[in-house]
């Protein structure tokens, strides 16, 4: 279908789109289709569970999130688990960023050995599954270096994500114009001064969106440490299920808790990005 067969003159109205496009393009129809699909999935799951004879007990869920006693607000097991997940993720993220920056700088150093070490590390980490890396840290390095399960989990997550973060940092650093390096050199700055005062502050803008994605990814992948029974959100969810057999309700709840946290994060960073844009 071509709109360009007859030239559109200035001031002349565009030809109307075909009726079928107008129908599916309108907001109300889109929303209706969306709701219908969601409803269908929800209804399908519900009737499926009914047919299994599943006994829904949503009313028992809130106590695992929070409760009010005489002492006031009490976090439930799932919220305590969320706290542990966040603590684990934040520690791992800080470590991963430091390690990632080192790897990125090594790769950008221009030294043959430096970039060989960095590339070797990247390829090693990127090409083994996270679960296997966790087993390596816990069952192999753990006994050798005396790592407890919590430390092994943090190191696994940090090392795994440092590889991804180093690539984000490298791309961000490379995105700063070459002229900035030359200007900094020409006023006599050292390489480390140039990074610190000129290059890194400008790369933040380029790094923010992919870094958020990486934090979200890290929080989600931290669930994997439940396989070595580190106390965190997913582990707590599993424990509750083995006590209560409410697997449908608990897994839905756990999923929603992860989703709420990562969504808040994404929205927060979108706001930050706008502020950075205005400053530039």
């Amino acid at each position, binding site marked *: 279908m071509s709109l360009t067969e007859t030239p559109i003159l200035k001031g002349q109205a565009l030809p109307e789109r075909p009726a079928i496009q107008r129908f599916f393009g309108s907001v109300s129809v889109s929303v209706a289709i969306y709701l219908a699909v969601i409803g269908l999935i929800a209804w399908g799951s519900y009737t499926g569970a009914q047919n299994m004879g599943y006994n829904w007990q949503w009313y028992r869920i809130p106590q695992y999130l929070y409760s009010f006693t005489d002492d006031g607000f009490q976090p439930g097991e799932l919220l305590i688990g969320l706290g542990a997940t966040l603590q684990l993720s934040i520690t791992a993220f800080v470590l991963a960023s430091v390690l990632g920056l080192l790897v990125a700088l090594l790769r950008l150093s221009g030294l043959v050995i430096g970039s060989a070490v960095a590339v070797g590390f990247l390829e090693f980490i990127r090409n083994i599954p996270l679960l296997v890396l966790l087993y390596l840290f816990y069952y192999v390095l753990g006994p050798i270096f005396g790592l407890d399960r919590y430390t092994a989990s943090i190191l696994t997550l940090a090392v795994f994500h440092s590889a991804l973060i180093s690539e984000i940092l490298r791309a961000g650093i490379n995105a700063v114009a070459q002229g900035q390096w030359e200007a900094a050199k020409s*006023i006599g700055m050292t390489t480390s001064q140039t990074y610190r005062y000129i290059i890194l502050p400008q790369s933040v803008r380029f790094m923010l969106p992919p870094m958020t994605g990486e934090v979200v990814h890290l929080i989600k992948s931290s669930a994997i440490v439940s396989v070595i029974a580190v106390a965190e959100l997913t582990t707590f969810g599993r424990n509750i299920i083995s006590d209560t057999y409410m697997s449908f309700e608990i897994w839905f709840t756990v999923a929603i808790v992860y989703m709420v946290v990562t969504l808040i994060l994404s929205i927060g960073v979108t706001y930050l990005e706008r502020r950075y844009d205005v400053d*530039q």
Partner: protein
Amino acid sequence: MTQTAPIIDATNLDKFYGDFHALKDVNLTVHQGQKMVICGPSGSGKSTLIRCFNGLEWHNSGKLVIDGIEVHEHAKEIRELRQEVGMVFQQFNLFPHLTVLENLTIGPMKVRRIGQQEAEETARKYLDRVHIPEQANKYPSQLSGGQQQRVAIARSLCMETRIMLFDEPTSALDPEMINEVLDVMVELANTGMTMVVVTHEMGFARKVADTMVFMEDGRIVETSPPDQFFTNPSSERCRIFLDQILEH
């Protein structure tokens, strides 16, 4: 012209980019206080030459001595040298995340370790010199091209440089902004600063230069005083080039 030791002394410089021979056996001396204008067609090696003067590029053979320091890739003194030799770029290269004032003070404060107050006083003095004292707290992107280039000049001056290199400082500017930058450069020349300028602004060259250099194909083809250079150039290539750029 004074006959003291030259402040820039290049002997038999050669520079390669892979197979491309960018500088061919270049010999050049610049004395304290001299104003040299280098011109020539694009790709003739003008920019490469002056970028060698503050270690943004390295020559492959020959000898380059600037202010008593022999320049080569592993010279420890290269950072001291860069503090003596200021560079103004075609694309300004201001630091976009810093205000104008911060652009001017970051070098003195971090490289020369001067206190903030003193650095800001110096910065304001040089902003006055380039006629934009009122723009101190703006960001570079809020300024016009001409203003940005004047900030870039002031940024170099804040390092108390003894030599200023200009790499086509007006080529990226809109025509109506060229003069405000050239005026600042003329004033700077009048203070006795040693200047090496790559430019095609022949009006500026006539007004300021005491030596004209014409480069082509990586070689220095002609070096002469401006009156001779513009009226009676000794090489045919130089005459053709001048005809082309002075026609309009």
